[in-house]
């Protein structure tokens, strides 16, 4: 019997297509409970590899014979070990190539739509961690918004589309993942924009991104209108692209809203968050398609794997946009918050340029789910 390597992109396809997969996760139980591969029609069994060192006989009857079985561990070594044991016992199984490390770093580009005067919007779905980045391409030029640290994927993608990256934006100073924005800008000589109110402590040069800024991509008039929407951070800025898309950063998600506490000022920023969501967004067209910087649960994915929904629908369906009472809103976003993202302080320092961890350290810092939202 055989042991096959399954790539993260294949697993992603199964998530998007809602296919079945049986995941045997052999990491320790704590890590598994903290963060795992999510798929609507996936089934799970968690048995740490170190309980299988003497053989897999004890779990054979727990594995299905009519479904594909994928063995998953942190970096792939233990999953290969277990997959080989299962193979010797007569099963055909796969292991996840690169383990959860690869899963955390995999980006799947999904086309969101075309722009009015030519050009396209792409969303990069970081399926394992729930981060969403964007590339806007028009007439040989590209802008990137909220890039992750896997910068080659963005630069290669732009190359494949024959586009030169001219502008790179971060909607805010991220606390849950390490931004690739500065690195991409340095590599491509693009301009790197940051909201100055989030950038008071940064150690590098940047273009101050202010509400009201309009940036053109390509020769055609593709406008990126910056809209100051504080609350998740004091500098948080949204973008209206081509009068059709609202890139909402970490202010508004599909099924939840941003949390104001990751820079330590929850109480101060509640009012800003409410103002952004209940006033500034209310003044926008309900036909805008909201494209957030994160998704939290797999149900937020559309049929094609993209994450986005009309603002009008969110006004109707998103609980966080429908709390009339201000006091109740304050409680929702300041009390009983989910645990803070792993290493979020170090991640913020990295994004400010204050510390420069190596790649392995960056990886460790980002392990686990993002936790930027409250419902």
């Amino acid at each position, binding site marked *: 019997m055989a042991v096959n390597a399954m790539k993260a992109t294949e697993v992603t396809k199964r998530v998007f297509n809602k296919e079945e997969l049986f995941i045997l996760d052999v990491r*320790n139980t704590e890590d598994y409970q903290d963060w795992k591969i999510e798929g609507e029609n996936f089934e799970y069994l968690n048995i740490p*590899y170190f309980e299988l060192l003497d053989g897999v006989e004890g779990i054979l009857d727990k594995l299905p014979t009519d479904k594909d079985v994928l063995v998953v561990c942190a970096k792939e070594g233990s999953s290969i070990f277990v997959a080989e044991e299962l193979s010797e016992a007569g099963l055909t199984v796969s292991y996840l190539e690169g383990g959860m490390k690869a899963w955390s770093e995999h980006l799947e580009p999904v086309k969101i739509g075309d722009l009015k005067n030519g050009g396209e919007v792409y969303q990069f779905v970081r399926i394992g961690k729930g981060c969403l980045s964007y590339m806007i391409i028009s007439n040989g030029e590209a802008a990137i918004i909220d890039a992750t640290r896997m910068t080659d994927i963005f630069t290669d993608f732009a190359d494949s589309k024959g586009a030169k990256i001219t502008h790179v934006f971060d909607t805010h100073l991220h606390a849950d993942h390490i931004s690739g924005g500065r690195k991409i800008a340095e590599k491509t000589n693009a301009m790197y924009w940051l909201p100055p109110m989030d950038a008071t402590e940064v150690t590098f040069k940047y273009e101050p991104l202010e509400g009201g800024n309009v940036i053109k991509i390509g020769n055609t008039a593709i406008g990126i209108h910056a809209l100051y929407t504080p609350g998740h951070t004091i500098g948080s800025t949204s973008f209206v692209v081509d009068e059709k898309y609202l890139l909402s950063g970490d202010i508004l998600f599909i099924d939840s809203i941003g949390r104001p506490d990751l820079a330590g000022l929850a109480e101060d920023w509640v009012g800003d968050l409410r103002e952004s969501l209940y006033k500034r967004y209310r003044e926008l067209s309900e036909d805008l398609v909201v494209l957030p910087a994160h998704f939290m649960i797999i149900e937020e994915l559309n049929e094609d794997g993209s994450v986005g929904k009309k603002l009008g629908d969110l006004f109707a369906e998103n609980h966080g946009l429908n709390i009339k009472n201000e006091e109740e809103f304050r409680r929702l976003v300041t009390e009983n918050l989910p645990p803070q993202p792993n290493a979020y302080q170090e991640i913020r320092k990295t994004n400010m340029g204050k510390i420069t961890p190596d790649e392995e350290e960056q990886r460790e810092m980002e392990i686990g789910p993002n936790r930027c939202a409250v419902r």
Partner: protein
Amino acid sequence: MIQIKTDFVLDAKGLACPMPIVKTKKSMNELEEGQVLEVQATDKGSRADIQAWAKTSGHQYLGTLEEGDVLKHFLRKSSSDEAIERKHPKVATNEELEKMLKTNENFVVLDVRESAEYAFSHISNAISIPLGELDDRIDELNNEDEIFVVCRTGNRSDLAAQRLAEKGFTKVNNVVPGMSGWTGKTININN
């Protein structure tokens, strides 16, 4: 650099998961009950995995020290001494000892666990003499003193208390359960 006495050192540096645990398991099989193993590893995931493995396999995880890129994990092999019947007549509870530590200075706490167990956490001013060394080092103690003997669960300390009584010590108390249930102050290796 802190030196901790162990019975065996396993070098698992540079090995990726699952090998550090595979080798730890193998080394553990070769140790005698109650002995202490030091595992040196560079795989960061080994810290959580070795604790979880120790839990499921019944061994005692003592702790981990970091030295540069190297993680040093300390484990004590499970022993069947947990099941024996205690024989030393004078017994004190953890609470009684804790109370005495606050009010009375005229007594000695003797910790008879392995020195690695002692290193990671012990009662302030406790004297460390592992059970296996007690016969050789009995001269370090004064048989006039009031002595409270502690170990992890009260069994090794029972054996030690019996031994001391045989040697003419008259004021010996076995503390039950000992460090496994200790909620009072301790001295820890990491601070």
